[in-house]
């Protein structure tokens, strides 16, 4: 595993995984902006990740694209690469790297739970596991997302003269919230912030059930009473949100576990809906992977490193430049 450095760079073949700066060859795990960037020479990813990159950055965001199906092997010299579903968002993948009988898995961002908006996470046995740790503290034990979405549905029923604005990241979370609403038989039109439109259309095209949606427009103020509006978190505090009648500010995120966090951000109805694994899922993945060597990135590494050491696993944090905790989509 010495072949890869702390920046997820494989020097032997000049290949990066999720690099921040433009590089020659880049494997991209998924379309979130802290993983997928503009300007690489050659991008290797799932078809959906490539589609998403093109939607976000334009068709020419990389010079060359190589599409890999889940499970399809791709070789460069004596390195074999295979992508497996990560269950994070549509198109998200883990990367299995095989070299000289050593199996290394980079999970990227992943979620173990069930999700209708993407292929579900597949566990891969390996020798070295590089796992994310966004929610790497035992306080994070995500509740059933259906119960959380019911809170929203109930609040809409009770507060007939308010509109509910749900903060959700434009890629993945927004569509997941919509899909969860549909699973709970909420069949009304869902209104969306303009920045969500293209991605929602793409999800629809990919046959993800997000139901009927419509871009928010300058209608009569009262029109939005009793409606659900989905917007990126940045819009919640913006002037944009003030045009609506008595908005109740909601947020769909794993961070909403902590009340004080919700309060700090002015969230009145926190919905604990996460696209990352919680503490137990992280531990479960580490244990079931059978990896003896665990490297931990993204977020609350300390507690997870401590846990691994307790289990006699070799473990250390891997600090990837350009990403700090709590700024992750």
């Amino acid at each position, binding site marked *: 595993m010495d072949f890869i450095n702390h920046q997820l760079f494989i020097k032997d073949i000049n290949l990066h995984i999720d690099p921040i700066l433009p590089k020659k060859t880049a494997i991209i795990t998924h379309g979130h902006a802290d993983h997928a960037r503009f300007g690489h020479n050659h991008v290797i990813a799932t078809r959906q990740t490539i589609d998403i990159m093109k939607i976000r950055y334009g068709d020419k965001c990389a010079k060359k694209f190589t599409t890999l199906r889940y499970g399809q092997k791709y070789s460069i010299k004596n390195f074999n690469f295979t992508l497996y579903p990560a269950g994070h968002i549509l198109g998200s993948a883990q990367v299995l790297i095989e070299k000289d009988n050593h199996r290394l898995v980079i999970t990227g961002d992943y979620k173990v739970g069930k999700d209708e908006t993407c292929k579900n996470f597949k566990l891969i046995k390996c020798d070295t596991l590089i796992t994310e740790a966004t929610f790497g*503290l035992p306080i994070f034990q995500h509740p059933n997302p259906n119960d959380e979405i019911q809170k929203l549905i109930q609040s809409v029923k009770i507060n007939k003269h308010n509109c509910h604005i749900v903060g959700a990241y434009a890629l993945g979370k927004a569509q997941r919230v919509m899909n969860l609403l549909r699973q709970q038989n909420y069949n009304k039109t869902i209104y969306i912030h303009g920045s969500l439109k293209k991605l929602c259309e793409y999800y629809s095209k990919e046959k993800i059930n997000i139901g009927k949606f419509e871009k928010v427009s300058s209608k009569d103020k009262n029109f939005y009473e009793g409606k659900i509006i989905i917007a990126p978190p940045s819009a919640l505090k913006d002037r944009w949100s003030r045009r609506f009648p008595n908005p109740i500010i909601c947020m769909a995120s794993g961070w909403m576990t902590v*009340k*004080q966090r919700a309060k*700090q951000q002015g969230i009145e109805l926190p919905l604990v809906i996460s696209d990352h694994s919680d503490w137990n899922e992280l531990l479960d993945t580490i244990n079931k992977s059978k990896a003896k060597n665990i490297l931990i990135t993204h977020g*609350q590494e300390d507690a997870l490193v*401590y*846990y691994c050491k307790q289990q006699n696993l070799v473990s250390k944090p891997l600090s990837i430049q350009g990403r700090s905790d709590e700024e992750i989509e």
Partner: protein
Amino acid sequence: MKKFSSLLHNLILTPSRNTKIKLLQDYFKTLDINRAYALAILSNQLSFQFIKASKLRELVYEQVDQHLFDYSYDYVGDLAETISLIWPTKKEGKSENLSNLIENIKKIEKSEINTEFSKILSRLSNNERWTLIKICTGGLRIGVSERLVKTALADLYNKSVNEIEEIWHGLEFPYENLFQWLKNETSKPKIDFRKLFHPMMLANPIDEEKDFKRLDANEFQAEYKWDGIRVQLMVASKSVSLYSRTGDNISSAFPEIIETTKGDAVIDGELLAGRSFKPSGFNDLQQRLNRKKASKDLQKKFPVFIRAYDILFYKGKDLRKLSLFERRKYLEKFQKENKTNQIDLSFIINFSTWEELTKYKNNFHGDLNEGVMIKLKNSEYLPGRKKGYWYKWKKNPKLVDAILMYAQRGHGKRSSYYSDFTFGVWKENELVPIGKAYSGYTDKELLVLDKFIRNNTINKFGPVREVKKEIILEVAFDDVFPSTRHKSGVAMRFPRIHRIRWDKPVNEVLTISEFKKEFKLS
């Protein structure tokens, strides 16, 4: 319990005052059995020191690894919330009602606390656990003041909040007489006013630019503002008791006052340390605070006295509706009749223009007065911080530039931000910490500091981060005292971050001996 915990959950997340009032009213409207407990809890009246924070930690360490808990607590910044989240959820039990739960907890034998309380925590939901721990440890911090609870009740039953306020401290759990009166089933509860604490009248900070233009100096009187603790002294023929500003009975800690006071009155004043009515500073008073008792020795070493500001009752007569001017006459009368070595009167400053008052604010009494109080001569004695009657005008703070050394995450609304800062000055080639501050900065400055700390940590000691010595903070503080407890030999009173000195290089910060010289400590 489910309902009450979701009430608290909603209250903490609602920014709107009106929504809070509505939530409270909805709760009080429907629940008869639990409302007394709810009211006691929301107004901090439930004296229920059943379990301490240290005990809770002990219990949680039985459930989860200590290090993992500590990492989590550091992240969350709230003990009750960390425990409620990290506690392994067993099968959730049937929801219990609030009053039964509390009654049951009260019945637990001391020797059984650990097992019984753990069992209860295990069968509650996250949110209920959080609520119960908050109740048990006291201090909800959910952004609901006692006043707001009273306002909600008053509005719900068409009473005025001042009427509730007047009788409030004479009411007792389970508040039957209050609720009956609110519902018009009985008349207003009768209360012996001499035996209960009366909420104090408080001052607002003066806005030098606006207020002095607007206010007529002739209508106001001024007194020195003293740096002690505000107290209320209740003197009835045979019993004397002393209350702190929050209504806690602190009589037992100040026997010299209780034993010597005579007469029949309720006095409002400042408790100060000092001999022969010469204040000696807050540091001396500190030696007497937060104690249950005071030995003869301690009384001798740190004597205290009360500087009287105001009088609320005199010989059973309620003076609160009289003007301050009138009340002062009664206060002087009381003092003449009952002279002791423990009570003197606050001095009234003679001034005719605001400019004239400035010199009293800044220079008089050296460092011992904090500034001046400006009070409308015509003011009734009104509970709370009403606008337009009493103002405080503080001296300009002292300032020092110091280097940011360590940071820790904050609690409550600042949880997860690095918002507690330790700063220091030079001692030869190293830095020695002189104080710690967690306020004063703007939200923007906090974000900048937080980011700096995350990116410039050179060492971690548990939750404390040591940072590169690059940031200079201008620290404002009220006073500084010599201290044997701190390495630097100094202790600051109320330090806060005034601004960040981007312009100043770290080598221009004072040395500790220069610092002591400047503030006359050596």
